[in-house]
C-alpha cells in the first residue's frame, strides 16, 4: 500500500514538474533555445509575488478569503513576467540567436547569474515561502483510503499543469496565432515572405514562455520554501522532464514530469537518500536509450531536421 501511495504522490509531484517544464519546452520547441535562466526567472516570479503581497496587504484586505491573495496576485505577476519575456527576447535572445546556436545558452546562463545574485542582493539569503499566505490549502488533503491521501495543493497544481498543456496544445493546433507560431518555428527565414515578422512572433512566444515559467515559480513557492539560488534545481528537474518526455512535445512534458516524480518517490522509498539519484538515473537511462534510437522520437526529430 505504501508503494502505491509513493507512486500516486510521485505522479502528483510530476504535475508540478510538468508545470515547471512548460515554459522551457515551449521556448525550445519554437525558437530552439535552451533557456538556462528558466529556473531563475521562476524564482524571480516567486519573489515578486512575495513583494506584491507585502506591499499591497492584500491578504488582510480579503479577510476570510485572504488565502486567495496569491492567486489574485497572479493577475499582476503573470503579465509582468510576460513583459520580462518580451524584453528578454529583444535584448538577449534575438541578439544571441544571430551569433549561432551556442550563444543563447551562454547568454541565458549569464542572465541566470545576474538574476540569482540580484535577488540575493534584494531579498537576502533567507528562505521564504508562500505557504503561509495560502492558509489551510498548503496542508489540507483528501483521504482516499485510510492510508492514501492527496494534498489539495498538489491536486490543484496537477490540474493547472493539465489545463496549461491542453491550452497550449489547443492554441498551437487550432488558432491562427498557433499556425503563425508553428510556421515561424519551422521556417523562420520564410515566414517574412508571407507577411509575418519573425522577431515579433518570437517575442510573443518568449512572453508566453516566461509567463508560464512565472506560474511555475509561484507554484513552487506555495508548495515549499525557496531562496535566491533555488532556480538551479528547478531548471534541472524541468530540463529532465523535457528530455524524458520528448523534446518539443507538450503531452510528452506531462508524461516526463510524472515519470520523473514517480522515479524520485520510489527511490526515496528504497533508500532515504534515493530521491535525487533515482530521478537522475531515470533521466540518464532514458537519455541513453533515446540517443541509441530505442525510443524513436528524438532520433526521428533530429534526422528530420538533418534531412530538411
Amino acid at each position: 500500500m505504501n508503494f502505491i501511495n509513493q507512486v500516486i504522490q510521485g505522479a502528483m509531484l510530476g504535475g508540478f514538474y510538468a508545470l515547471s517544464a512548460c515554459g522551457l519546452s515551449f521556448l525550445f520547441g519554437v525558437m530552439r533555445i535552451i533557456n538556462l535562466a528558466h529556473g531563475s526567472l521562476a524564482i524571480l516570479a516567486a519573489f515578486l509575488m512575495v513583494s506584491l503581497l507585502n506591499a499591497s496587504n492584500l491578504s488582510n484586505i480579503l479577510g476570510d478569503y485572504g488565502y486567495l491573495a496569491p492567486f489574485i496576485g497572479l493577475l499582476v505577476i503573470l503579465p509582468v513576467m510576460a513583459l520580462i519575456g518580451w524584453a528578454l527576447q529583444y535584448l538577449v535572445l534575438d541578439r544571441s540567436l544571430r551569433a549561432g546556436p551556442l550563444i543563447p545558452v551562454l547568454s541565458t546562463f549569464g542572465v541566470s547569474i545576474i538574476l540569482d545574485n540580484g535577488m540575493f542582493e534584494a531579498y537576502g539569503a533567507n528562505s521564504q515561502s508562500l505557504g503561509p499566505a495560502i492558509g489551510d490549502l498548503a496542508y489540507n488533503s483528501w483521504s482516499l483510503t485510510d492510508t492514501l491521501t492527496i494534498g489539495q495543493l498538489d491536486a490543484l497544481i496537477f490540474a493547472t499543469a493539465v489545463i496549461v498543456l491542453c491550452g497550449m496544445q489547443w492554441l498551437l493546433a487550432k488558432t491562427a496565432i498557433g499556425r503563425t507560431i508553428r510556421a515561424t518555428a519551422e521556417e523562420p527565414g520564410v515566414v517574412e515572405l508571407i507577411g509575418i515578422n519573425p522577431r515579433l512572433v518570437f517575442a510573443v512566444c518568449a512572453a508566453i514562455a516566461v509567463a508560464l515559467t512565472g506560474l511555475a515559480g509561484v507554484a513552487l513557492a506555495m508548495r515549499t520554501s525557496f531562496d535566491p539560488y533555488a532556480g538551479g534545481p528547478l531548471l534541472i528537474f524541468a530540463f529532465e522532464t523535457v528530455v524524458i518526455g520528448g523534446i518539443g512535445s507538450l503531452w510528452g512534458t506531462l508524461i516526463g514530469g510524472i515519470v520523473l516524480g514517480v522515479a524520485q518517490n520510489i527511490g526515496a522509498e528504497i533508500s532515504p537518500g534515493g530521491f535525487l539519484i533515482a530521478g537522475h538515473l531515470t533521466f540518464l537511462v532514458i537519455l541513453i536509450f533515446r540517443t541509441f534510437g530505442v525510443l524513436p522520437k528524438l532520433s526521428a526529430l533530429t534526422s528530420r531536421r538533418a534531412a530538411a
Partner: protein
Amino acid sequence: MSILSVETLESRHGLLVAVRGVSLSLNEGETLALVGANGAGKTTLLRSIAGAHKPVRGRIMFDGQDVTAMPAHRRVGLGIALVPEGRRLFAGMTVEENLRVAGAHGRKGVWNLDAVLAAFPQLKPKLKARAGDLSGGQQQATAIGRALMTNPRLLLLDEVSLGLSPLAVDQVYDSLRGLMSGGTTIILVEQDLARALSVATRIACMLEGAVVLEGAAARLSRDDITQAYFGLNRAAEPA
C-alpha cells in the same frame, strides 16, 4: 506608370557581387522572364526585390514608394510576394494550414482559400495532407498558392519548374497563364528558354550579375537571347 522600378541595384554575398548595377522597370500586368545561367544573380535579384536580401547600393521603388529599406514582411503588405526557390513550405503543417497562415498576414483581396483551390484544383483532395508528404508538383502548387493568399500585386516566381516532372510543369504553367491573363504582374526566373518565351511579355537576360539584354519578348529572337545567355556577343568584342 511603372509598378516596380529597380535603380542601379547592387547586392552581395560577402565579397561576391551577385547583382551589379541592375536597373529595370515593370508596368502593371507585364510578365518579365529573367533568364541566365546558374550564378548569374537572378535569385539574388528576386530576393532583393522581396526584401529577403539586403542590397548594398541602389534603390527599389514599388508603386511610387521607396521600399529599399523596408523589411520583407512589410513589403508583403504592399503587395510583393516571392515564391522561393526550393518551395520552402511549412513541411509539418497541412496544405490548408500553409495557405491559411499566409492568408492571415497578407493584403486583403480576391485571393482566398476557394480561389486558390479553383486555380490549383489538384490541391483539393490534399488539403489535410502534410505539405512535406506531397509530390513535387503539388508542393509547387501549394507554394504558389501560399504566395497568392497574400494577394500580391507583384508575384516573384523563382524556378517554379525545378525538379518537377514535365507533366507537373505543364500543370503549373497552365495555372500561371490564368494568373497572367488576370492582370497580376509577374517576374519569373526560368531555365527553360522556350517556356519563358511562351509566357513572358518581356525578357531580361542576366550574365554575371548584370542585365545584358532586355526587351519585349516579341522583338527578341532566340539567337539574341542565346548569345546574351552565354555572353557570346561580349566575347566577340575586342579585349
